[in-house]
């Protein structure tokens, strides 16, 4: 911490919220730097929201524009929903990082650059004709030029390391400087260094020295006249941890298997941005998790069906291109009415698209991307933390209704992090269901529960229940192959009705803002934070605006049509070209207005506010 003498010289500004973006080469460790800052802010008690934004290439050429990796964190003294529209501070480790990020920095923002990296060669790689640090092009910002590489190397003097190894620690110098600037303790990161590099004394020492040198630089140099203080946020009482969406997804399904009393099966093929779920579940062997890296997406889906047939809580995970390959087998899951969850962590498409970037354009794919009438429930988590509860909910629906369920995450919610209140296990629902057992008379594998229309789960090994199922149409009740025309019509209706009835078993839409009025903003998935923040601003401004968020996209909550009817204008912002809007129009005959941007990035709060204002003004009362 700063000394008393320093405090006299320096101002401390108290702020409600700060957004920092760390940007550097993909080899510069920006994701780690951001994660460390996040943990520290979270442990301190701020509300946080993060946005890692990294290239798909493992290592694009060093110093190049495509190789820039960024991590944005917003930390706050009050409840926040997004990682911020724009950073207040940009930490740029090289010219390419400056060039790709500075455009989003508002005038008056602060830029901290590693001035050592602004060599003619690097400037050339970033396609800068002149050095931006000297040509006046940054004059609207407060620029701090710090020779990070040189200072860091000096602090590591005497350690038995190559200059390349030394250079790899400069991100911790930058981190230390930011810790000082925002009055953060270095302790969580120092503990992390001990845990991570405990066995490698030199590396641990180097990282410790780099971190402390950055901190000390802030403290001793005359460059910074102000430090900033963001007090703790008022969060609900409880025990918290920091969690990403993919982590919460894995933990949610692990918990669901416990709540269901069935071991978890996870069959998957590696694909960005879903692979983390495979990695995490593979580490839970002591829970009896059977994780399976399949030879391809189709095999992962087939194995998931096999595991569901065998009585496990069966799960597969992928992203859009993988889901395309799974489609035929997903149809088999619908036809055989077996319970399982299919996770799709959406990314920008079509085809390979932009694998690390966010998009919501797979809604039609999961709704309609199979042959025949193939209804499947669809759920979408709104926030990283909610991935946990929605994983349990997806499992509950799958088991209770004997149906495959799609869980539609995306790259933003999957990689983003926020503080998560750890639930106590006794507050979670019992989602267990019984296997079918031998009864009187002929066993009917396609008989149905009168309320849920679920068929019996007759797992192999149950004497007296030997039966045959498959992808061919089934005779109602008996389950034998049937080409009877009326039977096919009846079975098609039954499959649809079974999914439709779930609407009575899920929470109704909750309205934020005006109960009725001028404008309803309705969205789904990871746009929640931005849309809610926009609605908060509009409501605070006295506008007749409301926001509702769909976590269930098939079936829609029972009150959806009624809620839509209470507003003069309905705005549907989506990171696609209007898929939910199309479904709402088709389902409720509502004149839903679309707002669509496909940039591989989350919306900005300001653009939603602007669009809402435009609509409010265009349709006077």
């Amino acid at each position, binding site marked *: 911490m700063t000394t008393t003498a320093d405090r006299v010289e320096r101002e401390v500004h108290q702020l409600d919220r700060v957004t920092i973006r760390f940007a550097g080469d993909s080899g510069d460790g920006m994701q780690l730097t951001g994660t460390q800052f996040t*943990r520290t802010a*979270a*442990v*301190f*008690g701020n509300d946080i929201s993060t946005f890692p934004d990294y290239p798909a290439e493992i290592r694009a050429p060093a110093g190049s524009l495509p190789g820039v990796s960024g991590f944005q964190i917003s930390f706050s003294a009050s409840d926040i929903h997004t990682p911020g529209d724009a950073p207040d501070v940009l930490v740029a480790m090289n010219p390419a990082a400056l060039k790709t990020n500075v455009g989003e920095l508002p005038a008056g923002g602060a830029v901290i650059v590693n001035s050592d990296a602004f060599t003619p060669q690097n400037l050339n790689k970033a396609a800068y004709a002149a050095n931006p640090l000297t040509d006046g092009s940054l004059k609207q910002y407060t620029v701090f030029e710090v020779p990070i590489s040189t200072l860091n190397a000096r602090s590591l003097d005497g350690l038995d390391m190559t200059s390349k190894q030394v250079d790899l620690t400069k991100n911790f110098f930058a981190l230390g400087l930011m810790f000082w600037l925002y009055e953060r303790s270095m302790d*969580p990161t120092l503990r992390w260094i001990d845990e991570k590099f405990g066995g490698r004394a030199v590396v641990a020492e180097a990282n410790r020295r780099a971190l402390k040198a950055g901190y000390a630089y802030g403290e001793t140099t005359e460059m910074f006249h102000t430090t900033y203080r963001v007090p703790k946020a008022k*969060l609900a*009482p*409880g*025990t*918290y*941890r*920091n969690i990403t969406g993919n982590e919460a997804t894995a*933990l949610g399904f*692990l*918990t669901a298997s416990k709540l269901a009393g069935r*071991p978890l*099966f996870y*069959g998957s093929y590696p694909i960005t941005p879903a692979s983390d779920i495979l990695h995490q579940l593979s580490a*839970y*062997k*002591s*829970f009896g998790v*059977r994780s*399976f890296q*399949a*030879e*391809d997406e*189709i*095999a992962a889906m*087939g*194995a*998931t*069906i*096999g*595991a569901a*047939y*065998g*009585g*496990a809580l069966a799960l597969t995970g992928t992203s859009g291109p993988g889901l395309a390959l799974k489609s035929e*087998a997903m149809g*088999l899951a619908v036809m*055989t009415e077996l319970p399982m969850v299919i996770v799709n962590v959406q990314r920008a498409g079509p085809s390979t698209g932009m694998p690390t970037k966010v998009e919501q354009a797979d809604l039609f794919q999961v709704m309609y991307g199979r042959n025949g009438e193939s209804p499947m429930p669809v759920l979408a988590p709104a926030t990283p933390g909610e991935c946990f509860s929605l994983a349990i909910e997806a499992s509950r629906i799958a088991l209770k209704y004997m149906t495959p369920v799609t869980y539609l995450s995306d790259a933003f919610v999957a990689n983003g992090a926020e503080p998560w209140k*750890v*639930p106590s*296990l006794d507050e979670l629902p019992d989602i267990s269901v019984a*296997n079918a*057992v031998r009864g009187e008379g002929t066993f009917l594998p396609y008989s149905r529960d009168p309320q849920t229309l679920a068929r019996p789960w007759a797992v*192999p*090994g*149950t*004497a007296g*229940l*030997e*039966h*045959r*199922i*498959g*992808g*061919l149409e089934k005779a109602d009740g008996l389950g034998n192959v049937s080409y009877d025309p009326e039977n096919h019509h009846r079975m098609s209706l039954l499959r649809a009705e079974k999914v439709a009835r779930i609407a009575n078993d899920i929470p109704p839409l909750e309205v934020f803002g005006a109960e009725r009025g001028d404008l309803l903003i309705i969205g789904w998935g990871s746009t929640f934070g931005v849309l809610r923040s926009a609605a908060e601003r509009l409501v605070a401004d006295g506008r007749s605006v409301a926001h509702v968020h769909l976590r269930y996209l098939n079936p829609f909550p029972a009150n959806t049509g009624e809620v839509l009817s209470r507003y003069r204008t309905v705005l549907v912002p989506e990171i696609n070209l209007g898929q939910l809007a199309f479904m709402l129009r088709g389902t409720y005959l509502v004149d839903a207005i679309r707002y669509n941007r496909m940039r591989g990035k989350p919306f900005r709060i300001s653009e939603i506010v602007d669009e809402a204002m435009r609509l409010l003004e265009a349709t006077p009362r």
Partner: protein
Amino acid sequence: MTAETTQPIAPLALTRKDFVSDQEVRWCPGCGDYSILAQTQKVMPDFGVPRENIVFISGIGCSGRLPYYMNTFGFHSIHGRAPTLATGLKLARPELMVWVITGDGDALSIGGNHFLHTMRRNVDFTMVMHNNRIYGLTKGQTSPTSEFGKRTKSTPMGSVDRPIMPLTIALAAEATFVARTVDTHTEHLQATLEAGGRHRGASYIEVLQNCNIFNDGAWRDFTDRDVRDDRMLLLEHGKPMVFGKARDRGIRLRGLHPEAVTIGEGGVTEADLLVHDAHAEDPYLALILSRMFWPDFPVPVGVLRDVDRPTHSDLVESQIAAAIEKSGEGDLATVLLAGETWTVE
């Protein structure tokens, strides 16, 4: 693994009839599949496994119907994917006896990838591949085992694709049990099914099967009763490779190449012949046998390879057991609180 899994194994007195389902068998009259079904039903009681613990999983094609006719658990899945369902099922329920029923198109064409990978993983199931060298259900197109130049509806001027040898592929894919048999050789078929069913691990059985509608006489040149002794080589572990009506012909190795010889000619004695070793850990002999085919050689039938390796689910279960032994059964509350936590009052 689920709450109520298998019943205790009581002494079983099941017969073939117990394995016949109530479904009417619907293959073309004269199809080789009838024989495969009959021998499968016949051999089932010998395993002493309760019906409810047996699962037949099939893909698409004429062979795909077989599970409907077995009074066990059955799953008629989609084209080529039966091995994937079997993999998931065995991971969830290692104690079940699983049979995968497939065809040359199902296993080698659309499902080729799963064929390779389930074999290399040694998933504990028995795959019975009905090989009729044609697409039957779709009414007569060329298959991965059809002869080069074969004229079919989809190849009116002859197929330009070379056929593949299923046994070679199974061996290359590290299958631990590889065998070939013939639909009409019922005793041999039954014995091969029994050996495959008893093997722990991935068993692959190629059944040379006739499609009397779209590819009649597919294997006739060497399987017909009057020629088969001279044109097929019956493999028996530990025995010299002798064939021929008069038991006077044999296979010996010349350099890297097998050679059909006549005992007594040119000084050849039985001692010069290859002795079959189905249990050899290395695959060389089995690979040589897998490449031998009529008319260059008598066609080997029987078990080419039968070796012991831990099965896929053995390995998975042992990792789970090791993880529990090391750190105890997973505790959910601990995992939920993993990493750095903080408390808000």
